């Protein structure tokens, strides 16, 4: 079969047999593709640092007849997260982006919007501030996957929530007004809802440069993570690690 070529983002690698790596790529051309990089563990000659998570590469791979896994021929690095310092918060944020993409995207389904979003957020994660790009990514991924409910009205009574208090619960979709909130609900502030509305109207670059403490949008992030975890029916490992990072 002919060698395929696509821009891709490396999501994860797993050791396979003695010297191979099983690589999950998010390709622009075909969506999420899993492939085997032969001898990648033993020899760094062909792949070098190209298989580090969140590296933006040009990947060359071929599908094999009657086999689920592609054969990864080579990867050319276009941009590497290792080019700038990898501090602990940045490492966790990058891993979070990789985990969300890996868990949310279906195999072999093109999603150019998610690809562009991932590239711009990875670029936004070059600085020390991680909370803005993480919030932006979680919000847009929830929307692109079709999991984001209407943030403007109560899911129970349909009353508009503009300017009034709103609540969310781990086991329900959408927001609730003060009268319909369930026991053990958490509140999402009006500021966070305004922030979400701003983020839907502007690219991530527009939010760069302003200081984002961890507290800003933390209720929005909690709501988004609960929504995503409910849909994928599993806990996100990196969400818990992000929570533990001090402001």
């Amino acid at each position: 079969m002919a060698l395929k070529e696509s821009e891709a983002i490396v999501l994860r690698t797993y050791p396979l047999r003695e010297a191979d790596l099983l690589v999950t790529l998010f390709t622009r051309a075909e969506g999420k593709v899993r492939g085997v990089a032969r001898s990648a563990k033993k020899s760094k000659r062909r792949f070098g640092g190209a298989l580090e998570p969140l590296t933006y590469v040009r990947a060359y791979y071929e599908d094999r007849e009657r086999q689920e896994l592609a054969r990864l021929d080579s990867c050319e690095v276009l941009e590497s997260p290792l080019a700038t310092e990898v501090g602990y918060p940045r490492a966790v944020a990058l891993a979070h982006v990789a985990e969300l993409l890996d868990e949310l995207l279906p195999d072999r389904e093109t999603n150019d919007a998610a690809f562009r979003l991932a590239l711009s957020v990875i670029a936004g994660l070059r600085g020390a501030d991680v909370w803005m790009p993480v919030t932006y990514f979680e919000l847009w991924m929830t929307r692109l996957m079709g999991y984001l409910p209407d943030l403007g009205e109560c899911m129970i009574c349909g009353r508009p929530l503009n300017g009034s208090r709103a609540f969310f619960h781990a086991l329900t979709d959408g927001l609730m007004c003060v009268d319909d909130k369930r026991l053990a609900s958490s509140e999402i502030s009006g500021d966070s809802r305004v922030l979400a509305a701003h983020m839907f109207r502007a690219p991530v670059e527009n939010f760069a440069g302003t200081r984002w403490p961890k507290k800003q949008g933390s209720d929005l992030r909690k709501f988004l993570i609960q929504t995503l975890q409910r849909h994928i029916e599993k806990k996100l490992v990196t969400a818990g690690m992000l929570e533990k990072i001090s402001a």
Partner: protein
Amino acid sequence: MSKFAEPMVRLIDSLKKLPGIGAKSAQRLAFHILRSSDEDAEGLAAAVRDVKAKLRLCSNCNNITDVDPCVYCSSATRNQRMVCVVEEPTNIAAIEKTKHFNGVYHVLHGSISPLHGVGPDQLRISNLMRRVDDGQVDEVILATNPTIEGEATATYLSGQLRRAGLKVTRIAMGIPVGSDIEYADEITMLKAMEGRREL
């Protein structure tokens, strides 16, 4: 009915659990052990038993050892004030091969790996900080792998260690000796340029 006698099946099954050993290799190794002398087979069994029974971690540096403190930590000829931090005990052998490092080690037993839920709390950092706080260390060399996980670990440790006013250094990254610059990938070349030195 099984192809082999039960003890043979058990040995093959045990060998199959080793990394890189498939069914065929396990069968070949099992027959090799069967044909070897009683003395050799007993020696192998005793070696496996001893590895589990006698080896432990050095209380000072976390290296795998049969004596505590380990040979490096108890050596009078090594510079005990220069500590090289590595991810795994196997990394020590690679550094020792150079015959140029005369300091001691500290083994973290892993690196920060958010995707696997491994943060700084899961690494063996506390006894390194204890050595530093006790004033036993002048320089720490961070020799974690040049991966995102290794870099995150090194950056985290350097932040912690610098607070104690120590000299903290990171091993160089770049073009492997004997290779060709033409074939170096972009990130390796970038690191090599960043880490260039004056001649």
